[in-house]
């Protein structure tokens, strides 16, 4: 298998690089800097690093103030605390006034596996996606993480960046052309389209290989920008395959799956099915949990086959 790099390490390094290039970057942290890896920035730029202790609401509301001052604040904490504890400043300060704040929510999906359901983020996309003015990005490997950090710093406006804790296989190379709002087709096949976001994209690619062994040709699309979503790539995939399966480490209510279903129901009605969460998960080994909760490559492939029968 290809090289594995933890998304959080890639993020921490990218933030540090950004800090070197742009003095307007400030980073805020809520006592999990060793986990989010914002500490890498903090060690080099102590004057532009604000660890507020365990006070996420305060941190995100402070970021609104920094943005009003013309800085580009990156706020860092677990995805689950960002979008629950700090939900109010995200919605009513940052998104409402389109403030230039970047919210990096780490340990998304089930990736904080041993800490259990209270630390796993399966509703964050649904929340941020439903807020007007928000851009929502969810990355799948280390290269994409680095490119996304650079791109969102360039973009003027509120962005939620969804990051995983786990080491993830590197899918893209340095020539990868990352553009906010543009999906990426990684495989083309006429029988079914699998549309995925985040590190679980890797299992979607493995599922496509399993399907290939059975003579089924799958298209695989990476949607890193969940909002604004790339409607064209989704509609084209539906036209080609007539069956669309979405895969995300998130509730099937309100996440990528819902976004894709919204696009298709309005533009090109197509049978859609969803791989994602319908329950809280639990503590355990990450790979074991992915299997148990239906994210394994075999489960994805089987779901794709059932979906083909609905065509």
């Amino acid at each position, binding site marked *: 298998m290809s090289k594995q790099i933890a998304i959080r390490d890639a993020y921490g390094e990218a933030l540090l690089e950004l800090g070197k290039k742009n003095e307007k970057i400030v980073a805020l*942290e809520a*006592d*999990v*800097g*060793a*986990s989010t890896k914002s*500490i890498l920035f903090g060690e080099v730029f102590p004057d532009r690093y604000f*660890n*507020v*202790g*365990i*006070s996420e*609401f*305060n941190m995100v509301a402070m970021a609104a103030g920094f943005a009003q001052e013309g800085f580009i604040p990156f706020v860092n904490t677990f995805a*689950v*605390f960002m979008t*629950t*504890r700090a939900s109010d400043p995200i919605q009513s300060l940052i998104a409402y006034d389109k403030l230039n704040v970047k919210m990096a929510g780490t340990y998304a999906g089930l990736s904080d596996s*041993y*800490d*259990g*359901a*209270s*630390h796993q983020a399966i509703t964050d996309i649904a929340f941020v996606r439903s807020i007007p003015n928000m851009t929502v990005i969810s990355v799948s490997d280390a290269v994409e993480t680095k490119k996304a950090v650079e791109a969102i710093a360039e973009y003027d406006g509120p962005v939620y960046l969804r990051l995983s804790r786990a080491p993830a296989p590197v899918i893209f190379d340095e020539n990868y052309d990352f553009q906010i709002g543009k999906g990426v087709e990684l495989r083309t096949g006429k029988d079914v389209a699998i549309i995925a976001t985040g590190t679980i994209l890797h299992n979607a690619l493995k599922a496509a290989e399993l399907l290939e062994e059975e003579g089924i040709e799958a298209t695989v699309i990476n949607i890193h920008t969940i909002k604004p979503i790339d409607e064209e790539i989704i509609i084209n995939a539906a036209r080609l395959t007539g069956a669309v399966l979405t895969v995300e480490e998130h509730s099937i209510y309100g996440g990528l799956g819902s976004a894709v279903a919204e696009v298709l129901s309005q533009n090109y009605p197509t049978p859609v099915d969803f791989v994602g969460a319908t329950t809280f998960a*639990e*503590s*355990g*080994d990450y790979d*074991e*949990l992915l299997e*148990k909760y239906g994210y394994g490559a075999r489960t994805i492939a089987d779901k794709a086959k059932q979906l083909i029968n609905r065509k």
Partner: protein
Amino acid sequence: MTKERKKELQDLCLKFRHDLIDILHSIQTGHPGGSLSCTEIVTTLYFEKMNIDPKDPQKEGRDRFILSKGHACPMLYLNLAERGFFPKEDLKHLRQTDSHLQGHPCFHKTPGVELSTGPLGMGLSAGLGMALGEKLKKTDAKIYVLLGDGEIQEGGIWEAAMAASKFKADNLIAILDYNGVQLDGTLEEIMPLGDVASKFESFGWNVLHCDGHDVESVSAAIDKAKESTDKPSMIIARTVKGKGISFMEGKNTWHGKPISDEEYKMAKAELGGGN
């Protein structure tokens, strides 16, 4: 407290420390620092103070314990198992798939857990709700809430502090695990609390102090808190994060680090006695 009783509780605490290190070493995940820090506090509550019945975990009018700093749950689980809420064999499955023992306390999975916690800063508010509920039900129940000192940086804690005072929740007894260390560093480095005793006093609380590693001192402070009228109580328990294992003591890096084989041997040798 008699000398004999004190010795019994101290022995129990030592046994819990041993078991904690055994379990966390074997599963290579979990939070040693904050669990060691609250050993005497949790053990004194479960073996000396609380009116609870493991055979009837939902008994009306029972005392409640809320581990608001939920990451220290291995110490809670050790106490619950020793009191007979569930088999001790379950402990080795901590944090494993299909176990009822979650990485953070889970009310709907683990017998004896009174509230799901993990996201910090909500236990005091929920404890206040329980305290006022027990008052409406006219019971003598006390509600104990264990807070981390980093945890009380959360704004919600201070909302609860105001409300508990207004509603005269004198059956609410909060205990602060005052170890001076949070996740990214010491409280002085990350977010100083200032004069925490004065802060709670000015919020209208009955503030008490104890040595959080002396079962007799913890017990005496709880007795005083139980006598409070009209005011909620805050016991500021001086503690050491990682207490009992010198290389972990006072170190934020031991907040949630796996214990290597080498460190395991050193830790066990240092604890000595007991197991």
